[in-house]
């Protein structure tokens, strides 16, 4: 119950608290709204459907293996290899034009509520495959909740994405979000310019 308080209660910044602990009682019970309770339950049990197609899969394995333990710590460990039993579609890697109908069908088979990760630059935008083979981003065919840029993204970036998604679920926010780089890309552009001018 303490966990419930800290997560659901602190989620709405500046808003009314959704969980109230009755501190006067010795038995200890909490009251909350049903939506807040549901969202809390959902965000800690994201059953994933890994749609792993390309080299980003290696980073996905690194993420799920013990060193980072990136999905188990957030309740998103259990993979379900049937889209009907999963909530979170991980699109990990390049999607070719031939695969696009299969991906769309998988998405349509998932039960509501469902969320989609675009893992890596190729899933987000097509990456450098600017040609006849590749779908230029999965958002061309299915809605996407979280974009995780990177080629492949570091496990930290994916963990950031998971936390961003949990935050969005708590707030009931369905607008797409992008994981921001931890390093400011503006400094990288300046680096390149200075190299070009030199």
């Amino acid at each position, binding site marked *: 119950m303490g966990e419930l308080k800290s997560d659901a209660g602190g989620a709405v910044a500046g808003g009314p608290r959704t969980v109230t602990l009755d501190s006067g009682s010795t038995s200890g019970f909490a009251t909350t709204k049903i939506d807040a309770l549901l969202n809390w339950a959902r965000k800690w049990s994201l059953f994933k459907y890994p749609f792993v197609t390309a080299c980003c899969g290696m980073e996905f394995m690194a993420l799920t293996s013990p060193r980072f333990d990136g999905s188990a710590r957030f309740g998103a460990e259990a993979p379900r290899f049937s889209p009907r039993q999963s909530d979170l579609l991980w699109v990990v890697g390049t999607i070719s034009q031939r695969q696009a*109908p299969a991906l769309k069908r998988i998405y349509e088979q998932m039960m509501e509520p469902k969320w989609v990760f675009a893992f890596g630059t190729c899933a987000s935008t*097509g990456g450098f495959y600017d040609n006849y083979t590749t779908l230029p981003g999965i958002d061309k065919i299915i809605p996407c909740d979280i974009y995780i840029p990177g080629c492949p993204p570091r496990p930290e970036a994916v963990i950031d994405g998971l936390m961003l998604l949990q935050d969005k679920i708590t707030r009931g926010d369905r607008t797409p979000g992008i994981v921001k780089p931890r390093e400011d890309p503006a400094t990288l552009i300046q680096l390149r310019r200075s190299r070009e001018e030199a």
Partner: protein
Amino acid sequence: MSERVLQVLKDKFGDAIVETHSAWGDDTAVVNASQWKEVCAFLRHDPQMGFDMLVDLCGVDYPDRDPRIEIVAHLYSVARRHRVRVKARVGNAEMASAEIDSITEIWPGADWFERETYDLMGVTFKGHPDLRRILLYPEFEGHPLLKDYPANKTQPLIPYRTEEEAGVPLDKLAPFRADEGMSFGRRVWSRGES
């Protein structure tokens, strides 16, 4: 190493061998397209040649040349341990007469190579048992490895969502500036200029 093979070919086929060259141990014979199958059968069945392995078969587009497509086959003899590369040139600027005899009867393994070359370059292999697209989908129009196929043109199988549905901009952004990345892929090939 197998320059002797080239010499045998020149002696036997004469004018059918358009040119030969050797560089860094690779020996190449350019064959008249009409005698492609005949030369291949000789290379396969002659006991002195014995090229029992078709390593690769592909096409190359040289848009400024006429004929523009070069069919390239790499052959290897397991027993004699020599290899040779044979080429044939087909197809004019409009890809008319881009056809050549299939060599699947000589090397059954040529089947998928020829389908791939047909798929990506648009070369027709006469006598091929099942000449269909192998990598791309049947709805695809054109042949993407020809240099005049636009480098970033896509042919989606399912319609893209509109921006109203998506609620986010869906422009396809070029990943590189004009001067970086594979800039050669963005060159517009036009006939008559080189």
